[in-house]
């Protein structure tokens, strides 16, 4: 896809929507940089977290645990929090098709917002364009925000002052709405949310979100399309 086709596929409104989220993410990056430096990490380590790990929630968690002198918990907690990316990868793998270069780069750009924007699009070209634009621009703004936070310190102050902590969940729900308007999607989403919130009082961070997959239990049966030929039972999975 060339550049002009890319922008036409997306459309102005979607680009603006993505821009709003990317801007908010940039400000959260500023607060990450500021908090990490304030907790005693050297600047290079803070920048390395953002560039190499590139997963906000796990970065905040790991920095807190490193500062508390618990590196093993930082690793395990961070990985548990990021385990959701494996099923995300399954869901978006068709958007990263077209060679190993795209697969390797696209995997690193896999953030919640990119998956959510992709999921909200009606067709594959737009899903693909939305994934790449969201992932790439969040990467750039996350790094820029981190740098600003590290070197300008607490100029911005607490991001909750601006309500940014409320913007992220609201944006996610807005992006999920097309799916939540379908009965199966609504059942799955409600059960997932309830299970995860209930679990978060008992299990370590990261696990509640994974337990949300229990929502799939109420996805309902798929109506089997008429088989193209009356061959024997298809194996559930086969290696290509």
């Amino acid at each position: 896809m060339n550049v002009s086709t890319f922008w036409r596929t997306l459309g102005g409104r979607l680009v603006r929507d993505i821009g709003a989220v990317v801007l908010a993410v940039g400000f959260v990056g500023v607060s990450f940089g500021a908090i990490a430096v304030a907790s005693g990490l050297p600047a290079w380590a803070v920048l390395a977290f953002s560039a190499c790990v590139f997963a906000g929630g796990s970065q905040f968690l790991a920095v807190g645990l490193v500062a508390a002198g618990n590196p093993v918990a930082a690793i395990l907690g961070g990985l548990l929090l990021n385990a959701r990316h494996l099923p995300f990868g399954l869901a978006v793998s068709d958007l990263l098709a077209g060679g190993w270069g795209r697969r390797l780069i696209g995997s690193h750009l896999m953030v919640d917002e990119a998956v959510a924007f992709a999921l909200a699009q009606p067709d594959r070209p737009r899903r693909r364009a939305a994934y790449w634009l969201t992932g790439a621009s969040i990467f750039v703004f996350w790094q820029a925000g981190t740098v600003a936070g590290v070197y300008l310190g607490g100029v911005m102050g607490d991001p909750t002052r601006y309500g940014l902590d409320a913007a992220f969940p609201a944006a996610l729900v807005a992006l999920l709405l097309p799916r939540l308007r379908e009965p199966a999607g609504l059942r799955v989403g409600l059960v997932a949310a309830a299970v995860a919130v209930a679990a978060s009082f008992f299990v370590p961070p990261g696990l509640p979100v994974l337990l949300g997959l229990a929502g799939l239990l109420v996805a309902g049966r798929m109506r089997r399309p008429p088989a193209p030929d009356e061959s024997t039972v298809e194996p559930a999975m086969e290696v290509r």
Partner: protein
Amino acid sequence: MTTANLVLVIAVLAVGTYSLRLVGVVLGDRLRLSPAVNRLLPLGAVALLAALAATAALTDAGQLTGVARPVGVLAGVVAAWRRLPFVAVVLIAAAVAAGLRQLGVP
């Protein structure tokens, strides 16, 4: 913490996170999944994102958050439900939470 330990934490977390991302992508590409499983994949993403949104809206480190954040999120969700533009949804959620905090609501 020593520099070596810090490098180790960042490296292991980075490689581990990247592996989780890549493994899903490669598996999704290599395995030909049955139609039933293929239908479940986007619903699985819906489940994870809904779980993420709900826990981010309501909890903080295993405890309930204050009132301002959930009310802000709720305002944003209502705006989205009424089909307001996405940018408005984000702004309304943030403004309501920030406004409540200005008024002293936790």
